[in-house]
């Protein structure tokens, strides 16, 4: 029974990270219909910025997280403006390739600055918490709580604020939104900034349990793609549900099937689901 609870917690941890990364990806897809392959590089950049601030400058964990979120948000907004904005009218292939160019550039830059080594990110939360008879690392609790706070905040932002409503409006009907006086360029940049900030926050929350290295984003982003396809591209509830499904499937799969199979599960699940329902589990809801 304890092991079962432990797997639930593991699934929740993994699922929270996947949710945050997938949310940013699905938001950008909803606005621009671009699968942003560089999103994993944003995730990686967030981890490295925080790592640098904490290890070299001795910043506090939370301050470093905020700074990482802010700088990756700026990076993502600039990428939106300089890379994806000029390509908004070209065919589906070109924005994808531009995103790949951005991904390769960011990964190579990180490797040039920090080297290819695996690094451990320090965290002030190294203790254990006792919940229902089993011990959990404080960082895991923080990760799950942080992720759910961010998801709730995003949901409130999209549903309750005017700025959030402009994002939803743009996702529903780009031209209609422009006719209503919404500055579509600015909203697109804002969406990129939010997606970057979410990715950076996810990375800083998860990195102390995991490791920091230039290619750390590639597997996470591939799974995030699997998640948003399962959840329906551009759907916020779909991304959250998909993230949790994959998180639980991986933790239970690693425990009950084989830990070698862990990374395969997301993709096999995707293949199975898309074979049965090519349009995803949730039909494409707009945000």
């Amino acid at each position, binding site marked *: 029974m304890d092991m079962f609870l432990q797997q639930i917690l593991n699934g929740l941890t993994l699922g929270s990270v996947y949710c945050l990364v997938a949310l940013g990806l699905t938001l950008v897809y909803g606005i621009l219909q671009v699968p942003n392959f560089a999103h994993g590089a944003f995730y990686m950049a967030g981890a490295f910025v925080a790592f640098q601030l904490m290890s070299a400058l001795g910043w506090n964990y939370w301050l470093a997280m905020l700074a990482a979120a802010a700088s990756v948000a700026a990076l993502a907004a600039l990428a939106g403006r300089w890379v994806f904005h000029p390509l908004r009218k070209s065919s589906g292939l070109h924005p994808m390739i531009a995103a790949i160019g951005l991904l390769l550039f960011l990964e*190579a830059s990180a490797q040039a600055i920090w080297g290819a080594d695996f690094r451990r990110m320090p965290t002030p939360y190294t203790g254990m918490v006792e919940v229902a008879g089993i011990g959990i690392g404080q960082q895991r609790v923080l990760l799950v709580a942080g992720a759910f706070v961010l998801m709730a905040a995003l949901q409130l932002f999209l549903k309750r604020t005017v700025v959030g409503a402009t994002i939803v409006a743009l996702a529903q009907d780009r031209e209609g939104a422009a006719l209503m006086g919404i500055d579509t360029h600015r909203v697109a940049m804002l969406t990129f900034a939010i997606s970057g900030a979410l990715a950076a926050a996810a990375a800083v929350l998860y990195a102390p349990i995991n490791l920091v290295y230039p290619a750390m984003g590639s597997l996470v982003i591939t799974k995030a793609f699997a998640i948003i396809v399962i959840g329906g591209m551009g759907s916020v509830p779909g991304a959250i549900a998909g993230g949790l499904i994959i998180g639980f499937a991986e933790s239970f799969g690693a425990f009950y099937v084989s830990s070698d199979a862990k990374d395969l599960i997301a993709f096999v699940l995707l293949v199975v689901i898309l074979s049965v329902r090519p349009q995803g589990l949730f039909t494409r809801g707009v945000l």
Partner: protein
Amino acid sequence: MNARTGWGLLLLLGLAFPLLTDNDYHLTVMSSASIFALATLGLNLITGYTGQFNLAHAGFMAIGAYTVGILTVDHQWPFWAAFCLSGLVPVVLGLPIGLLSLRLKGHFFAIFTMCVGYILFLGIEKWESLTHGAVGIIGIPVPEALPTPFGDVSFDSPRALYYLVLGFLTLGLWVMHRIVGSLLGRTFVAIRNGDDLAESLGINLMRNKLLAFLLSVFYAGTAGGLYAGFVRFLSPDLAGVERTFDMTMYMLIGGAGTLLGPLLGALGVPWLAQYLQFLQDYRFIVFGPLLIVLVIFLPDGIVGWVRGQWLRRRASQPASVVAQEPDQQSTSVGLKGERHA
């Protein structure tokens, strides 16, 4: 200068290349670039001509390579026997994958195949009893000497291997030229330009997309088989999505949806990378932004851009001059106009 003379000159240049350099290293770079050029031709068929961005392409190349590696090293097959299967095994595996993935359109197909690529990569890395896992396959034999009327031709020198690869690349280009110039090639382009329109013209989308996919996979697998015989060492990295990104870059820099573009890209970029060797692993600091700039400003690649200029100049000439020009260019050159039609 018409297209045929141009291609002839290019082939002559390829044949003369070993005479222009006595540096084995240059031959090795050129042979390896030619192998990837062959695989890029395949990627260009499914992505450039048919419009389906297959991100698992390197995975299929790896399957072809591992077919040769496993059969020669673990089962002592002769190289050529194993090589004959290197194109077919990926096609057999690609059939169910194609049937499944080609039902998806646009971005979904790209994302799905990216996941398939990861499955292939992880499969090769984890299935140690078959593929030797992360250690890789070592000691693949050199292709055996082939008996010809002029005596045996052996492949144990870099020069002989270069000519072998050049031969397959030429054959691959010629076959590709026949495919894209045929009604079938036109069908693929029609699907790229708009699958609803293509379907309303009576084109069976699934059958044609699957055919393009399997042909491209066959190219990838054959290139993989050559890679195994040439490099003689295989590791799971060959299946990595980064390899597909490389080939996409070659295709795009030269010009997707043209015959010459992917060839120029695949042969030119590795040479450029040689000059950027001081950057080593960081070469993407240059190539990444280059790719973005290219996609924004030269979306049809170098060959596409030159052709566009040429067509524009031709169009602005008096009609009488155009009428005198023989129309033999149009089969291989008319794509640029069609894309925007």
